[in-house]
């Protein structure tokens, strides 16, 4: 259906034009993934995490600044894993630095006071493990729901400005595409720290997903 090199590369329509059932299906996938993944986090953080309904969005690679609404320089900890197998895509976990600090205070309490300017190797290692578990829980729940076999790569990690993280992902993994489909899960903790879980299925997988769920295009 979509070929690289076409004028209208990937998802030639906007979210408004997207089939409602497809959009709901993607939201459901986001819910299922997050539901499973946050179980472990709630236990660790011992507070209530507020899950919003996932947003289905198209990220235009040239409009990342707009997408981020002035937050390009926010420092975030990001973990990225590739999903390969019956469906392919990328999972990108983006954690505000404040939230990462909160998590570290719970899992490595003896490290107080935490140096808020940079993390130690031990701290990065601990958060990396957590991200690994979180991404793994998310993906396995989604894979089970869709009844597909997938592998998850070890996460690549980056602690830096949000704009640079997103633009680098777009450029390194999606340079052929004008628009990237994002299932955007947003979580807020009690202290109003937040993180995003982006699930980015590629178009071939998008079609496969809809096929698996028995939702075809008209």
């Amino acid at each position, binding site marked *: 259906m979509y070929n690289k*090199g076409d*004028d209208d590369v990937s998802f030639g329509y906007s979210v408004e034009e997207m089939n409602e059932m497809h959009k709901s299906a993607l939201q459901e996938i986001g819910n299922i993934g997050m539901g499973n993944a946050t179980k472990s986090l709630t236990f660790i953080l011992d507070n209530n995490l507020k899950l919003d309904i996932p947003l289905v969005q198209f990220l235009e*690679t*040239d*409009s*990342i*600044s*707009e997408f981020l609404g002035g937050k*390009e*320089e926010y*420092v975030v900890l990001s973990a*990225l894993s590739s999903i390969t197998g019956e469906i392919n895509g990328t999972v990108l976990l983006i954690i505000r630095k404040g939230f990462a600090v909160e998590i570290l205070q719970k899992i490595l309490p003896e490290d107080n006071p935490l140096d808020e*300017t*940079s993390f130690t190797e031990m701290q*990065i*290692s601990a958060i*990396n*493990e957590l991200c690994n578990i979180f991404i793994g829980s998310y993906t396995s729940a989604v894979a089970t729901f869709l009844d597909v076999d997938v592998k998850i790569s*070890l*996460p*690549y*990690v*980056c*602690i*830096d*400005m*949000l*704009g*640079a*993280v997103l*633009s*680098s992902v*777009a*450029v*390194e*993994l999606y*340079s052929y595409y004008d628009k990237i489909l994002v299932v955007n899960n947003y979580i807020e903790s009690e202290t109003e720290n937040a993180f995003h879980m982006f699930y980015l299925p590629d178009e071939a997988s998008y079609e496969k997903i809809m096929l698996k769920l028995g939702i075809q295009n008209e």
Partner: protein
Amino acid sequence: MNNTITVNISDMKVAQNSDTLVTYALGSCIGICLYDQIKKIGALGHIMLPYAHNDEEAKKKKHRFADTCVPDMINEMIRLGCNKRSIVAKIAGGATMFKLVNSRNNNSANSDLNKIGAQNIVAVKEALKEYGIILLAEDTGSDYARTVFFDTDDGKITIKSCNRQTNII
């Protein structure tokens, strides 16, 4: 006078009158700064990728690619009265942002994920050379994001990064 003008991704702007051009959070992307020190006119282009794939891209998204952005920047500056021979360049960006943690065999540099930054640096330098623009300074590569401020009053570039001292080139 002394205004700050923002340049977004895949965008390019020209400035004068001691205005400052700024582009935020360069990762693998590169901020190309061209300056005519006599006319005190500067152009900042924020490119994402090294080469345009076809004529269509070259026309519609010329500021996204190093090979099409550089000549366009030069043309714009000439249009405003610059002499090409007075134009010099400074560049920043082209980082490899992502790392594998806890990996004994850290092949991050060779992974699929970290190619474009380095390619961008090569492509920008190639383009500058092709059009005869001298590269005066650079803050490129490594693994950190950069925000670039380009002062058209004196052509100085100020680079801000997390956990690092501000660098002025």
